[in-house]
């Protein structure tokens, strides 16, 4: 047994020990050993991180967006560094759901990882088909619906940029799978609360946000956009204040859990999202800079709780003190 006020059970009796805070988190009925997950698209299929650390230490691994068929992605000129951030327009290059189910999922099982599959489709039918196939993976903890990729027309943003579109998509995928369904929201909308409510009313078990913010970079000399896709998604520390505000608004708008994403680089950043009400967080771009980012953030949260004498995540989460 972990957590509690310095008491733990050992061989049937209670012994005192240095306080180990209980970091366990819950996203709907998905239990996580801690609130830190990897964000889709920044963590490959998870196995790429096994040289660096034991990926079962994470709350969950969210794998790269999967489509029905393998997808080649956009032409090169896919990333640009921007002040305290980066733009990407990868175009959802991926191996397709079938290879994931047959080749990757068993290895994630072997690694002891809790994993969630991010999915997208060009049509609602494709979303349904991917969700149905993934439902056959016993250990898969949840499906995260990508209704917000800004870099391909079919990447869901067509569905995710207004409440009606999102509601229709969520309802159909909800009916196609018995797995917990998380819906990843785009920040490129005027009212994030309305979008989050649409997902909730359509049967989502959780919303995750934010996906990247649409941005652009051009070369003044060549007069060309720096990305082959012209526009791309902004991520990294530059987006954190926007993400935090939107997560806070979403938390106020819905009763289902909200998973906070956007520019989290440190335990302090993660704590901010938890404080405004996020049930858990996802760490994305930070993984590029430091492959150990997720586990360093987990350790940092634990150290903070020890220092601040916080015994469990729920004693801290959502406890923002407003003026």
């Amino acid at each position, binding site marked *: 047994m972990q957590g509690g006020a310095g008491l733990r059970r050992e061989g049937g009796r209670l012994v005192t020990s240095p306080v180990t805070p209980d970091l366990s988190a819950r996203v709907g009925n998905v239990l996580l050993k801690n609130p830190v997950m990897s964000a889709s*698209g*920044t*963590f*490959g299929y998870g196995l*790429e*991180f096994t*040289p*660096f650390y034991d990926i079962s230490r994470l709350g969950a691994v969210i794998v*790269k967006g999967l489509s029905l068929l393998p997808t*080649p*992605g956009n*032409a*090169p000129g*896919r*990333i*640009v*560094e921007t*002040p*305290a*951030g*980066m733009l*990407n327009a*990868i175009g959802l*290059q991926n191996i397709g759901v079938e290879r994931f189910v047959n080749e990757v999922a068993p290895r994630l099982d072997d690694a002891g990882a809790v994993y969630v599959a991010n999915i997208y489709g060009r049509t609602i039918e494709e979303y349904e088909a991917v969700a149905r196939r993934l439902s056959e993976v016993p250990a898969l903890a949840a499906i995260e619906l990508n209704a917000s990729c800004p870099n391909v027309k079919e990447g869901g943003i067509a569905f995710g940029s207004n409440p009606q579109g999102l509601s229709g998509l969520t309802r159909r995928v909800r009916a196609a799978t018995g797995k917990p369904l998380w819906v990843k929201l785009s920040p490129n909308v005027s009212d994030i609360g309305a979008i989050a409510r649409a997902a909730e009313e359509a049967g989502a078990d959780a919303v995750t946000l934010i996906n990247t913010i649409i941005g652009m970079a051009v070369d003044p000399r060549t007069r060309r956009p720096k990305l082959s896709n012209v526009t791309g998604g902004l991520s*990294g*520390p530059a987006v954190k204040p926007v993400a935090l505000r939107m997560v806070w608004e979403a938390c106020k708008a819905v009763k289902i859990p909200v998973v906070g994403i956007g520019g989290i*680089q440190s335990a302090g950043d993660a704590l901010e999202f938890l404080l405004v009400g996020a049930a858990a967080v996802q760490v994305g*771009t930070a*993984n*590029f*800079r*430091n*492959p*150990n980012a997720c586990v360093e953030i987990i350790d940092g949260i634990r150290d903070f709780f020890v220092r601040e004498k916080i015994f469990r995540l729920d004693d801290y989460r959502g406890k923002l003190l407003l003026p």
Partner: protein
Amino acid sequence: MPSSSTGRYGRAMPQGSPRFVHGKILHNTGSGIFYRMEVAIPERIDFVPGQFAMVSGWPGNDPLLPRPLAIFRSGGVRGKGTVEFVYKVVGRGTALLSGLHAGDPLALTLPLGHGFEFPGEDRSWWLVGGGVGFSSVFPAAAALDGQRADFEIFLGARTRDQLPPGEWIPGGAVPGRVHLCTDDGTAGFFGTVAAALRDRIDRRKPTGQGRLAILACGPREMLKTVAEIALPLDVRVQVSLESHMACGFGVCWGCVTAVREGEKSGYRRVCKEGPVFDAREVVW
């Protein structure tokens, strides 16, 4: 080339798992337009020539991403290692790197990528470096020199001052083996490294040409020209490509290049399937 150890210059061995380490700069000194930086790291790493590291050492979030640098040399014993890089200032990241001093901390992920291959049927090697590209082929030259293998080096630069110092050249600047080329004729061959290579390949005896292998790193245009010259002569060409990359270990999918896959083409990661590719596969 046998896959035995080749001392401190790395090994032609199956390519090992990367790790993330914190190091400390031992020295970081300028030499002409190049910097040479040696870093103490917690453990000895073995690398294949052509492999690289992702390196960052500046405080704060801007620039955000580490920079890819070819591994020039590694050394040390179990429990204590060193790694060396040669780089040129090309942007803000490398400019910040050049301002770091002995004792400054550095974060490194290494060794990364797929390096040069040395199949047994190759018997002589030509190593081609354009600009700072020599930093990727010199480790290969050093390994070959350690094997007393037959190799020649072609180095290209805009002008004399932009060539690497002679003492950095593995085996030394031996005339006939090392071909210096400058665009402005201030040193060595007057013209591009590709032109020098064409000149040399024409003078080569036709026999045994299948045993020649070319390993090249430099600007993409140069690599393309080298491939166009050598591939029709049945010479095996490996090219080390450059690309903007965010992670360096295969998860961001930002650095891809188009490669031939049978009749079609697809995108492969420069950081993972590369940076060294068989030139026949690359879609230029």
